[in-house]
């Protein structure tokens, strides 16, 4: 029996799998179902609450975009087989560094932002190096950094300014060329036009009378969309994306096939840190201040969004689009409960439930792809 004769005819043992099942075998499924469910729910229960007028939409879009920015980093890192629990602390740390550089040390804001990016991405690289050099689980290594970074975030402002919140960044950023890329808004004229023709409401009183209630899309949202597109293309359309899947699927097999696994993992830690810093910079520019408690629990929210988006905690499988939908679900529910007048603590109950549901669904999908193993 030669290899060529066997199976040259159509294999009778392969059942045609139905389109439905085929559609099921994709990481985004949970995210898509969840998004539809969540929107249906709030359209039915909270339509009149203002959640779906221009201001309301902007409200949950901004919150979703925040989740998205950190979810993209966490998603790629998780697919590459690692975790980063220091994301939340990194957000606090990055924001504090920008504040210290620009306010306490009175550096130009653009320089403060750039140095902070370099510093934070470097810390991400250290995370990665420790993980690949020691072979320790990234869970433990980044847990250490969760405390280290948070500690410094409280320590520095205490020592330098004798307080835990540093303000005055808005004044410092006045006229800066880089700050608007994080704190500015785009599309102002379009919204003005929409206000004029009555597509969106305008203020009827006060100093801003006649101006549209939404005067532009915050850069935060632009960053979120940009990062999602970048992450999605990187993962699915490039050689590096294949390496990310391979590194997380089985590092040893990938290494044996010539994939530079260590480089991939370190770069993903750096990218996660980059995303956290983008988040922090946008937040600092918006609030005009940095607080020592910023970003608390964000690492878990990022991971939950990623898992809702269909990624496996064990690595090697997942989708950036899925993670973005996970973040959208998050934002819509968190703000939706507020609009619907539901006690906000119930949001946590919802989180726990949806996380559980997502993990169970993912396990089922994984069995489908790998053929019941």
């Amino acid at each position, binding site marked *: 029996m030669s*290899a060529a004769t066997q199976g040259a005819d159509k294999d009778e043992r392969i059942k045609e799998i139905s389109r439905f099942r085929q559609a099921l075998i994709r990481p985004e499924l949970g995210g898509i179902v969840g998004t539809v469910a969540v929107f249906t729910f709030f359209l039915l229960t909270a339509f009149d609450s203002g959640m779906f007028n221009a201001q309301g939409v902007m409200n949950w879009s901004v919150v979703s975009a925040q989740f998205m920015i950190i979810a993209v980093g966490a998603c790629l890192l998780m697919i590459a087989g690692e975790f980063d629990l220091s994301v939340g602390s990194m957000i606090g740390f990055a924001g504090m560094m920008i504040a210290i550089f620009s306010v306490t040390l009175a550096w130009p804001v653009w320089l403060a932002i750039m140095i902070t990016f370099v510093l934070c991405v470097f810390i991400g690289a250290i995370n990665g190096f420790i993980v690949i050099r020691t072979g320790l689980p990234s869970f433990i290594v980044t847990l250490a950094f969760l405390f280290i970074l948070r500690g410094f975030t409280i320590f520095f402002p205490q020592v330098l300014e004798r307080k835990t919140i540093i303000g005055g960044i808005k004044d410092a950023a006045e006229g800066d060329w880089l700050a608007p890329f994080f704190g500015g808004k785009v599309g102002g004229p379009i919204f003005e036009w929409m206000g004029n023709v009555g597509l969106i409401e305008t203020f009827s009183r006060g100093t801003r009378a006649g101006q549209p209630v939404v005067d532009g899309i915050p850069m935060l949202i632009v960053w979120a969309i940009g990062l999602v597109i970048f992450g999605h293309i990187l993962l699915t359309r490039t050689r590096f994306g*294949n390496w990310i899947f391979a590194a997380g699927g*089985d590092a040893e097999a990938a290494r044996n096939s010539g994939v530079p696994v260590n480089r991939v993992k370190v770069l993903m830690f750096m990218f996660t840190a980059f995303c956290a810093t983008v988040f922090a910079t946008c937040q600092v520019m918006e609030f005009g201040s940095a607080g020592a408690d910023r970003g608390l629990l964000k690492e878990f929210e990022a991971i939950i969004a990623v898992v809702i988006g269909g990624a496996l905690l064990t690595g090697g499988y997942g989708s950036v689009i899925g993670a973005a939908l996970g973040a959208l679900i998050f934002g819509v529910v968190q703000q939706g409960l507020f609009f619907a007048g539901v006690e906000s603590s119930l949001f946590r109950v919802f989180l726990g439930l949806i996380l559980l549901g997502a993990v169970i669904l993912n396990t089922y999908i994984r069995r489908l792809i790998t053929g019941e193993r």
Partner: protein
Amino acid sequence: MSEPIIRMNNIEKHFGSVIALAGVTVEVFPGECHCLLGDNGAGKSTFIKTMSGVHKPTKGEILFEGKPMEFADPRDAIEAGIATVHQHLAMIPMMSVSRNFFMGNEPLKTRLGIPFFDREYADRVTMEEMRKMGINLRGPDQAVGTLSGGERQTVAIARAVHFGAKVLILDEPTSALGVRQTSNVLATIDKVRKQGVGVVFISHNVRHALAVGDRFTVLNRGKTFGTAKRGEITPEELQDLMAGGQELATLEGSLGGTV
């Protein structure tokens, strides 16, 4: 015979206090199937791992096409033309066949100056190569996890051949396979050898080795007893060498020579 493609000269490998290899010399010629036999823990996997750049030899030298070579990592060996199908870790089950097939060798196409992974090309080639090997895929995006053990081995072999391997190393490709799948893999080895590739075939099954092997090297506790040509050695002699001589003789009595 012609020049060997690769010559492993007096290779030693120590893992701390464990001496896994104590001076092993093996040559591989183009178009031959060189069988590496030996019992569990004899050092076969360790030996081919030094050949494929996973381990650095503690002592000894590697001559590739006559020139001394040092492989810093598997990538170097792959670039030189040494493809390896490892015993356990050859494929990633969660990834599609086509992504696995091109893992580490992704074809690129440039759009707007950015190199993208050419998935159309990858999918097309994967389907073609699989058809040549007699495996009908549902589609190039079928996950490797849904393939049988033999099919996975075949994918790994097809991949190695496709990327122009001069030496193809197979670490126990038949040990987990059934009769039919084994014969498929052996037929594939035969096909590959005829294309002029030097095949290193590891097995502890003497019958599988004799079915395709041109030359045989037996490893025992990190040492070799030299290399024998096909026809110079009987299956019984090979069997005895693998077990290190006498023990098997006593065994054979009670088992009636069925081992």
